[in-house]
């Protein structure tokens, strides 16, 4: 049981074990631990960064959606204004055109009526001459009575003298 040289042998073994641990075991394991610690903290930092970016992106997205909605509404409103405008324009033009057509139609009618009257007047004159000739027993010379005929024709209502009067 007494102490003997075993003690020194044991001390040598102990010293060797401690030296070996310090030299070959502790450093690689500690560096692995340190590396992992760094990786974990870097990962956590990255996660935080990612979360922050995501939050920003969400805010941006919400902002953009709002903006887009606003723009869309504006466009719709603009389109509505424009369509109303176009409609009014079209109606206005259509009215114009219809007025023009109506006026044109009326002028045409008047012109035709005047032409018809003129025709009728001249035919009436011819007819009157023929009737007069028959009554008088001889032919009325158209050339000789040309002045009278044109006077008659002018007196005929609706003749060349009052074409402008469209109400009659």
């Amino acid at each position, binding site marked *: 049981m007494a102490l003997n040289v075993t003690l020194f*042998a044991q001390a040598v073994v102990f010293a060797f074990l401690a030296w070996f641990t310090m030299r070959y075991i502790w450093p690689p394991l500690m560096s692995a631990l340190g590396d992992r610690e760094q990786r974990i903290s870097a990962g956590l930092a990255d996660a935080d960064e990612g979360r922050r970016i995501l939050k920003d992106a969400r805010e941006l997205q919400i902002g953009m959606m709002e903006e887009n909605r606003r723009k869309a509404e504006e466009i719709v409103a603009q389109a509505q204004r424009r369509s109303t405008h176009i409609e009014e324009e079209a109606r206005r033009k259509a009215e114009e055109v219809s007025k023009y057509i109506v006026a044109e139609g009326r002028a045409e009618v008047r012109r035709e009526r005047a032409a018809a009257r003129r025709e009728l007047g001249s035919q009436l004159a011819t007819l009157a001459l023929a009737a007069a000739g028959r009554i008088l027993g001889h032919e009325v010379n158209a050339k000789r009575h040309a002045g009278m005929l044109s006077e008659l024709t002018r007196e005929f209502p609706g003749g060349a003298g009052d074409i402008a009067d469209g109400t009659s």
Partner: protein
Amino acid sequence: MAAEGQGGSDASAYIQHHLTNLSIGDGFWTLHLDTLLFSIVLGVLFISLFRYAALRAVAGVPGRLQNFVEVMLEFVEHQVRGSFSGRNRLMAPLALTIFVWVFLMNLMDLVPVDLLPWLASQGGVNYLKVVPTTDLNATFAMSLSVFAMVIYYNFRSKGLLGVARECFLHPFNTIFLAPFNLLLKVVEELARPLSLALRLFGNLYAGELIFMLIALLSLGRVLGDFAQLGPIALFVSQLLLGIVWSLFHILVITLQAFIFMILSIIYLSTAQESH
């Protein structure tokens, strides 16, 4: 013990046999081969296992072995950092070595007390003590190594003058009481390695002794009346007592390894504090 007569001498012979080291040499030059063999085998087991883990250590997801080794490392690192103010790259590895080596040596106490000696006797080796920490040489080897380091660090951090002042002017700060102060200091310093070594030795020695006594119970030679209960009762009682003591002993061996480590750290850290 109540052992008497034939049974008593058998029992003491049994215990005596178990407490004898396998040794060569005489007197001071005696070498306890069993202590050396087991402590070296366990030490090599420790460093090869940890070295293997260290070689395969990755910063990524650790495997089972690496995890275990890292837990040990961080546990020791935490302890060292807790009581160590300065930086010394020997301290933590030293503490790890002490803890794991002492634990492994203590663990040999849980090997059935007669198994290895019996195997050895089959091979013609008559004496074998399997628990190195029940050998004072092993425990003193560590505590005196720590003591030597304490002395070295004391001189290194405080200088010759500082150490002298601590020896002669503490606790009584007068030159007239210098011899008394020195005496106190010597006692104080010597008490540390002594208590360190004897605590570990005593706990393990006693534990081993109790395993022997439990083993003796089944031999039926210790408690004469008890032996008449028959072999089955003896076997069961041996089994129960062995299990109970083993379970308790798991605590003891871990605790003793831890205590040895933590006290070494504390002694070494106080030695390195410069005032």
